[in-house]
């Protein structure tokens, strides 16, 4: 018991003293996950909008597939990216294995389906509401897509945050393709896993607390953003 208590007190010290290793890991975690979420957003929002607006054969099947891919197990994604990027893999020549770039790719693969599926849901609903009016205006497909992306922006923030939440909290994929190399590819989740297994609880606890605070802050702000939309009025 006293061991755990002392771990907590060291953890607090690490946070309060802005321990160099701790800060470096946090910085890298955010760099990797924010990059992944930025790329996933650039892919996922337009894809969600196109799926909401454009009718084409196989659209329904594609939507179902993307929804199913939301549940991809991170370790399997890690394994597949590993096979692709490893020295003998098809993209091995790029030498990305065990780099932050590989981790960004892995998280991207993991969250593109999430951002796409969630934004598709939001945009589909909005498009159903707007469709006749936009048709009546003679809006082109690109105009319709831009309109729903803009008008749906509040709810889209929530989809993007869900993607970010999944990316920062995930261990399996980044552990496999990043390798948890100190000073290079170590992020919060992989460090927690490693330090805990070594029985070195202080750093793990400090990072764990920061991860929890991040997750809570994310969800709270997603809620606030959604809540700030004015109530719909019947009419």
């Amino acid at each position: 018991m006293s061991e755990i208590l002392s771990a907590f007190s060291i953890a607090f010290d690490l946070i309060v003293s802005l321990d160099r290793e701790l800060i470096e890991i946090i910085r890298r975690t955010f760099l990797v996950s924010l990059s992944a979420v930025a790329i996933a957003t650039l892919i996922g929002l337009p894809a969600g909008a196109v799926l909401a607006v454009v009718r084409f054969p196989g659209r329904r099947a594609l939507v179902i597939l993307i929804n199913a891919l939301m549940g991809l197990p991170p370790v399997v994604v890690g394994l597949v990216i590993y096979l692709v990027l490893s020295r003998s893999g098809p993209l091995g020549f790029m030498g990305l294995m065990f780099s932050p770039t590989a981790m960004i790719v892995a998280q991207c693969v993991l969250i593109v389906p999430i951002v796409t599926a969630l934004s598709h849901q939001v945009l589909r609903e909005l498009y159903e509401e707007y469709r006749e009016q936009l048709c009546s205006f003679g809006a082109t497909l690109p105009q319709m897509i831009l309109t729903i992306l803009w008008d749906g922006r509040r709810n889209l923030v929530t989809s993007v945050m869900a993607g970010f939440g999944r990316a920062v909290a995930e261990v399996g994929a980044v552990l496999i393709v990043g390798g948890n190399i100190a000073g290079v590819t170590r992020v919060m989740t992989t460090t927690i896993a490693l330090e805990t297994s070594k029985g070195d609880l202080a750093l793990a606890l400090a990072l764990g607390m920061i991860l929890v605070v991040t997750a809570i802050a994310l969800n709270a702000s997603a809620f606030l953003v959604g809540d700030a939309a004015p109530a719909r009025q019947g009419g």
Partner: protein
Amino acid sequence: MPSLPLSLENVSLSIGGASLIEDVSLTLHHGPRTIILGANGAGKSLILRLSHGLLGPTRGSVRWGGAERLGPLRRRQAMVFQKPIMLRRSTRANAGYGLKIAGMPRSEREARVAQVLERVGLARLAERDARVLSGGEQQKLALARAWALDPEIMFLDEPTANLDPTATAAVEAIVNEIHAGGAKIVMTTQSLSQAKRLADEVIFVHRGRVAEQTPADEFFANPRSAEAAAFLKGELAW
């Protein structure tokens, strides 16, 4: 090329196996204010949607000035829906959105939007989120938004259904002004007195069919169809 005359030729519409519009033929010419009358569920809104090209007929054809494809002609038409669709934007942005889609430059747009909002009495609420406007205010905004487009054909689906008497009179005056400006008016209403005030010709719809298309004087004095006669006496059974 103009989108008038607009003609429905033997148009039928089924959705999900239900036959909603059956073998409707009618022609709308430039000029007269056309009022579509009929009981709830008769098919008035569907006929407006077909005429505006929002729905395609299951059988038969719709032609705009002879063309079977509406294409860019749609931008010369405007529609005020029975349930106004409010974009998640301010009243002002809603009023100007059709013009923005049509590519009118911002400076011109602003002047036009200010003008129509003033005329429907919403200038005061220009910055308010359109979705918190009252039902009647939303209807006025929908009218202003369509009017701003200065269309060749204006479809109005019960545009005064939620309005108080003063606002109703104001909307009727605006409809007449739009008509005087050269637009074709195609409007539905539930109100016989309104139909009498506004109609130059009446299309009477009953259970998905057009019972008659008759000049207004004649329609109210001496309807051709038994259904319309019963409707005018307030005796039409559902």
